[in-house]
């Protein structure tokens, strides 16, 4: 279960976790596990791989806690490590090539009750993007990060991020129109 972003965490929580308080660390994990797991799930298109990735990210965090300066830095660090680790895993093994389709349906259904077909198709189209543009789209739209933050997270020039977003939006919109999931007039 993830903690809501609306629930403020005290700054002392990070200090407690750094001091070796495992309960404080568990609280930090619960606050961010949904985002980290979702990045893994939508990058790798597999729940088992996404959970492995999330575990790896939080284990790295546990070892690097001393280098985390603030709760804001923690959020940035986790998303950065999750996205880059997923890109690295995709380079080594193309997870999306072996994606079980029913799993994609499960993911889509979990996300929204309305129009599950559209959500499922969106997941499939997102999975067809190359790893870097896919990571850019997830950090921009799932994590709602601005372009400069996405660029910093992925060690990418801002203009490259903008270019990835523009091309990916055009491709996704075109495919959705082609699949008659949206009308040209509705979402050109």
């Amino acid at each position, binding site marked *: 279960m993830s903690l809501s972003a609306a629930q403020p965490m005290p700054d002392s929580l990070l200090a407690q976790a750094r001091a070796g308080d495992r309960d404080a660390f568990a609280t930090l994990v619960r606050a961010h596990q949904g985002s980290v797991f979702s990045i893994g799930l939508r990058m790798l298109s597999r729940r088992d791989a996404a959970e492995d990735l999330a575990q790896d990210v939080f284990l790295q965090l546990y070892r690097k806690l001393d280098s985390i300066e603030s709760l804001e830095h923690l959020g940035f660090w986790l998303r950065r490590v999750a996205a880059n680790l997923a890109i690295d895993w995709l380079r080594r093994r193309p997870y999306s090539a072996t994606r079980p389709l029913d799993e994609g349906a499960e993911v889509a259904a979990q996300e929204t009750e309305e129009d599950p077909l559209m959500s499922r198709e969106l997941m499939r189209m997102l999975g067809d993007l190359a790893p870097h543009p896919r990571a850019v789209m997830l950090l921009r739209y799932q994590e709602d990060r601005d372009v400069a933050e996405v660029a910093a997270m992925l060690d990418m020039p801002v203009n490259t991020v903008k270019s990835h977003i523009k091309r990916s*939006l055009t491709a996704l919109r075109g495919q959705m129109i082609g699949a008659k999931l949206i009308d040209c007039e509705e979402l050109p």
Partner: protein
Amino acid sequence: MNENFEDELRRRLRAVDAPGGFTERLMAALPVEKNPTVVAFIPKAARPARQFGVPAALAASLLGAVLFGMHVANDRSLREEQEGIAASQQLMQALRVTSQKLDLAYEAVNNPPTAGDEENRS
């Protein structure tokens, strides 16, 4: 309209919950020590091979090449020396034969056979 599509993406790409029990599994997997030394998990036998394997192989190859080169050079030098000695011996033999022939010729010129010798011979 473009903003509509982006809003739609934001709505459909909301983060999902991690699987149930994720935090508990993670906490169980955490090392007891916060900053464990990674070296402790690497088998000791594997470390020198990983650290020095390639340089050691290169050094061994280089040493092998040098030793082989020295062996070949030494072998060639020895063979050339033996060939030189053999040639020298052949030359000395040839000179000895020539000298003996010259002695016989000298003998024949300075002491020609007499008539008695001719009669005795026939």
